[in-house]
């Protein structure tokens, strides 16, 4: 799908940004994302994630950011911001900010028209983009009548129609019901499989293992950068940044306290199923859990590592 399967898609080198009131938002931020890579950007509220996103297509720029960002090998020219959407599309957190035209079809056509694409091609792109997010035939819908989940998907369609190589999204799965969330994750997975470069801001740690090959923790600066497993294994950094590890990983840590044999903690339900199957097969069709004197204290210590305040209480297992 994309011509940039190789090479650096996003290069950020020593990016600094202060808010107009002087507060430091980003400090010495540096990282590289390769073409076709899918990266989750996590960090506590107010860590500068959304601010970073707005820098990637040049909408926010300052003396501190000059020359520090390269997209597809070219530094951002503040005078050519309107050409950036060819390379990188940004999906904002609040879809009401992105759907500003009277009709949904106009919103999806807005980007390609601005890029100077000819009418017939724009029409084709509008139809296919809406279809790809499961909103085929929604061209003449009025966006303020859409549901929250539909709006989120519609916002993605408005970016897909510009056919950028890189798509950056701000909390795509936030505020959605489980079904809408699952639909959205499916869309993101499809984009990933098509070879788009994805940068996804999220607090949804349980979705990260499915969506991202790599996780970057941003807390004004890059605090951690590695595979999902590497980052989730570094619990201390994670908890210090106000984050958590996937529920399934915590659960297997608890199982370990009950002497479940497991060297590599699964990050997703799928790998958990695989892990359980393997263990059961090795154990002749059975899995054995044991309780000892120190089991509870081990569970306790596992919990205190993963949680900020919560303490595990013994009486809860009954």
């Amino acid at each position, binding site marked *: 799908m994309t011509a940039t399967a190789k090479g650096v898609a996003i290069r950020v080198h020593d990016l600094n940004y202060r808010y107009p009131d002087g507060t430091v938002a980003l400090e010495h931020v540096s990282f590289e994302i390769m073409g076709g890579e899918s990266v989750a950007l996590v960090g506590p509220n107010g860590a500068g994630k959304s601010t970073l996103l*707005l820098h990637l297509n040049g909408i926010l720029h300052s003396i501190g950011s000059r020359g520090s960002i390269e997209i597809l090998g070219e530094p951002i020219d503040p005078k050519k911001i309107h050409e950036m959407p060819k390379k990188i599309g940004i999906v*904002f957190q609040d879809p009401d*900010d992105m759907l500003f035209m*009277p009709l949904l079809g*106009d919103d999806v056509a807005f980007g390609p028209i601005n890029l100077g694409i000819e009418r017939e091609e724009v*029409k084709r792109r509008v139809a296919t983009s809406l279809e790809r997010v499961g909103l085929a035939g929604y061209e003449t819908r009025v966006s303020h009548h859409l549901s929250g989940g539909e709006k989120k998907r519609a916002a993605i369609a408005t970016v897909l129609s510009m056919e950028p190589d890189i798509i950056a999204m701000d909390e795509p799965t936030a505020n959605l019901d489980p079904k809408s969330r699952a639909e959205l994750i499916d869309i993101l997975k499809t984009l990933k499989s098509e070879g788009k470069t994805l940068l996804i801001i999220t607090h949804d740690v349980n979705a990260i293992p499915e969506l991202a090959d790599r996780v970057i923790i941003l807390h004004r600066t890059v605090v951690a950068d590695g595979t999902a497993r590497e980052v989730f294994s570094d619990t201390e950094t994670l908890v210090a940044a106000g984050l958590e590890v996937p529920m399934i990983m915590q659960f297997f840590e608890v199982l370990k306290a009950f002497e479940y044999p497991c060297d590599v903690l699964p990050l997703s339900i799928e790998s958990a199923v695989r892990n359980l199957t393997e263990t059961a097969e090795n154990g002749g069709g059975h899995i054995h859990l044991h309780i000892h004197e120190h089991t509870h204290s081990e569970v306790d210590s596992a919990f205190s590592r993963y949680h900020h305040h919560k303490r595990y209480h013994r009486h809860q297992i009954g």
Partner: protein
Amino acid sequence: MISEIDRYAGISSPIHRWDPRFRIVSIFAMIFSVILIYNLQLVVIGMIFAVILVYISKIPFSFVLSRMKLVFIFVLPFFVIIPITFTNTGLEMANFGGITLNYRGIEYVEFAAMIAIKALTAVMLIFPMIGTSRMDITIKALEGLHLPNKLVQMFAFTYRYIFVLDDEFMRMDRALASRGFKKRGDLYTLKTISKAIAMLFVKSYERADRVFYAMRSKGYAGTIATLHEFDSGRDDWVKTAVVAGFALLLQVAATSDTFGTYGGLW
């Protein structure tokens, strides 16, 4: 909830099927023609024409009249203000310590009636003009008429975000009510409401920022274009000829001797 003027855009009538660009221009001409006339008979004829247009458009009169309530409230005082004034002309009615209240005669009542009918006619014409197609189509028609793009954008954004703002204000209203706030006629109520409105302004400002960023992210460089295509046929021209022609006819009549401008007043 904000009532939508385009609530009856979905029905079908000769006015609905009229190319919105032609329709807007023709009825707009009609509105101007009525407003510029200073002759009661001609204004009444204009009003009858407006009523016929509303009838043809199949927009229920109950809907039109309920939306015109505010206009009534606005024009009713003219019937008192214009004929009865404190200027020292006409028939003295009462004296308040040297200031006399005068009744200026039946022709001034007629004049007030003319002003009122003009206002009501102008507002009534808005319904067949923009109430007969969805607002987005109307906005595109304005774009098609080569109205300055900035103006079209202002209309489009007003239409798109007025509902968002309305929702936001409703949420604030509920948040206030859920914490025991009750609207009374006192200063505290006024202060609270004005603070809430101030917050709404701040929120709108911030949203405007974010929307602008989103537009820039999609390559916005100053103008907005859409894909909509209008096609006009012979019928559209005929309807235009009828309505715009009538507007012109009113003006011609106004300059003729039969219906001179309002005698003696202007």
